[in-house]
């Protein structure tokens, strides 16, 4: 952004100091995430940049940890470890996808109800529905651990899926309600007056308009479940390994660069999800005729 010609030297200095400060903050936000990408290719087993690595010497760069992660390991006992990563990936996807479907269905329907003009106790109900996002995970996990063990849901996939669904619904409710603000209810009336029944109106008129919000909500719910570790540790059994649980175990016991490989994959996943959500948001704003940012 160019400064106007009448600015004094002092103002210029101030402005560039401000820009530098902002640059440093952005660096603080983003640098740690990208620091791990190159390190996952380093042959050093300690998370550090060695001199050889910095000089791009071929023997300092390796795909060994990635091979271990997917289970093609040459070293005897590492196969067990690497299998755990793949098992974790499978479990994370099973739990994540199931929880996402449940959370999206429940959350979307609830958001439709909450956005109605004549919903009683709207504020209180909204506060309750959002609370899983606010209550510390350690308290949630403790509660679920005791209660689910009473009704036999601990150590089951069902228990984990239900728990993650509860944690994911606030995101769906928030994004779908946000899409529904400015929703023209006349469209529903028009559809009904033209003879469409409730279901047809929902799928043909409402759904296409709120779809961007629903999908972003679903992606939020998915990433919430995919990242969640505390509930999995308390409610799940020892064998129910997920990616974050395996990372947690890895960080606390044997610090292995395989963690960095998985972290790199997760960063790639989050970039993909973020891009999707950003594109959807813009599409949604365009559809609803709201001006883009700025």
């Amino acid at each position, binding site marked *: 952004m160019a400064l106007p010609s009448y600015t004094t030297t002092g103002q210029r200095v101030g402005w560039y100091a401000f820009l530098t400060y902002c640059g440093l903050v952005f660096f603080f936000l983003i640098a740690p995430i990208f*620091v791990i990408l190159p390190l996952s290719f380093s042959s050093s087993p300690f998370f550090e940049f060695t001199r050889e690595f910095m000089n791009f010497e071929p023997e300092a760069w390796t795909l060994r940890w990635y091979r271990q992660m997917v289970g093609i390991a040459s070293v005897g006992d590492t196969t067990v470890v690497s299998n755990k990563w793949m098992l974790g990936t499978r479990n994370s996807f099973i739990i994540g996808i199931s929880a996402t479907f449940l959370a999206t269905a429940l959350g979307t329907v609830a958001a439709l109800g909450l956005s109605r003009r004549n919903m009683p106790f709207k504020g209180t109900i909204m506060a309750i529905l959002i609370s899983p996002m606010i209550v510390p995970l350690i308290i949630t996990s403790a509660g679920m651990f005791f209660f689910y063990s009473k009704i036999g849901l601990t150590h089951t996939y069902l228990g984990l899926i239900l728990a993650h669904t509860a944690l994911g*619904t606030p995101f769906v409710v928030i994004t779908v309600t946000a899409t529904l603000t400015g929703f023209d209810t006349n469209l529903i009336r028009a559809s009904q007056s033209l003879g469409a029944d409730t279901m047809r109106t929902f799928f043909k008129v409402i759904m296409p308009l709120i779809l961007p919000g629903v999908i972003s909500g679903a992606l939020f719910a998915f990433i919430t479940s995919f990242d969640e570790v505390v509930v999995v540790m308390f409610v799940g059994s020892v064998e129910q390994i997920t990616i974050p649980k395996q990372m947690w175990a890895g960080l606390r016991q044997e610090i292995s660069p395989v963690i960095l490989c998985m972290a790199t994959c997760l960063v790639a996943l989050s970039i993909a999800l973020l891009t999707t959500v950003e594109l959807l948001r813009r599409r949604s704003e365009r559809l609803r005729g709201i001006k*883009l940012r700025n």
Partner: protein
Amino acid sequence: MNEKTAGSILTTEGIPLKVSLQKAERRNKIRAILLVAPLLLFILFTFLIPIGDMLLRSVDDSYINTVFPKTFKEYKKWDRQGLPSEELYKTMFFEVKEGSGRSIGKATTRMNYAKSGWKSLLKKSKRKFKKIEEGPYKEQMIAIDKRWADIEYWKALGVMVDPTTAGYYLNAVDLKYNVDKEVVRQKENRRIYNHTWVKTFKVSILVMIFCLMLGYPISYLLSTLPLKYSNLLMICVLLPFWTSLLVRTVAWMVMLQQKGVFNNLLVMSNIIADENRFKLMYNETATIIVMTQILLPFMVLPLYSVMKTISPNYMRAALNLGASPLHAFWKIYMPNSVPGISAGCMLVFILAIGYYITPELVGGKDGQMIGNWIAYHLKTTLNWGLSAALGAILLGVLTVLYWVYNKLVGIENIKLG
């Protein structure tokens, strides 16, 4: 329109319009409730009831009453002056002798919280009671272990007679019941929680302040830059938001450890010597740095959305009227951005206060917060009453904050990007 005329207008079916409208309104209301009901019930059963159930453990003291029902009944007759009667010794004797080892073991854990020594006393006694066939029991018990003649042990039982207790809450703030059920302070070396509470608040407030200091300028920049730049920079804020918490924690371990990137850079550029590398990992500093980075997006998003609505004309007008840029900022821009500041600060504080994963991984010994103690008692010491009490206090604080947040900002205005 008054009652009379409203009543006289009829619909085509001949029903008064007012009645018909009311009916339609009611139907709409029911429809709205029916849409919300499934999720509300789901949250109730999978989330709220479990938490409520857990919180009940913080006052629950009924288990021990199921192990020693007769003893406690007999106990209430005791005047607490001098040693109890033969009758009380006798009931205690039989309930210890005949009770299952497992339930006695569980009960003694609880008894040890009231007076340490009970556990070893009962363990020893249970073994030796087998040989005793007939009374009088009082002398024989005292002969086995002279602690049976110590009135302090008997008095301590009085703390556990009621099926509910406030004892765990007292423990959670470094107080306890003495054997006479008076509230006293914990012994010097066992006072840990008040210190941890203070630390939890301190860390949360510091994280909140740092987030504001870092978040305010970049939100301002984002809200004033042209769209094509701000969208790109917004990615920098949103990407950490979407990246796994554990991944970001790992990344910080890589950055901050002794041989980590940060220290290496400083050594390479000869700012510090190789042997005085900073200890940035496994302490409170690490907890604060990492939590600040993790929670920063939650500060930027509400700030940005408020700053977007502040018209640049206000600042221009102030400058035009002769205010210096700083003065104009302080008097015009800042007050306008207060809703964003309060929303961001509250959200960051609310999320920070219950943090567990980050302090556990990077906090070392001195960076632990109250969430870590809850987990510790849940997993390691199995003192579930105490972890429930700590959780209940934390939840109480959060409920107040959440309520204020809802009043100030409105929960439906939470921004997720």
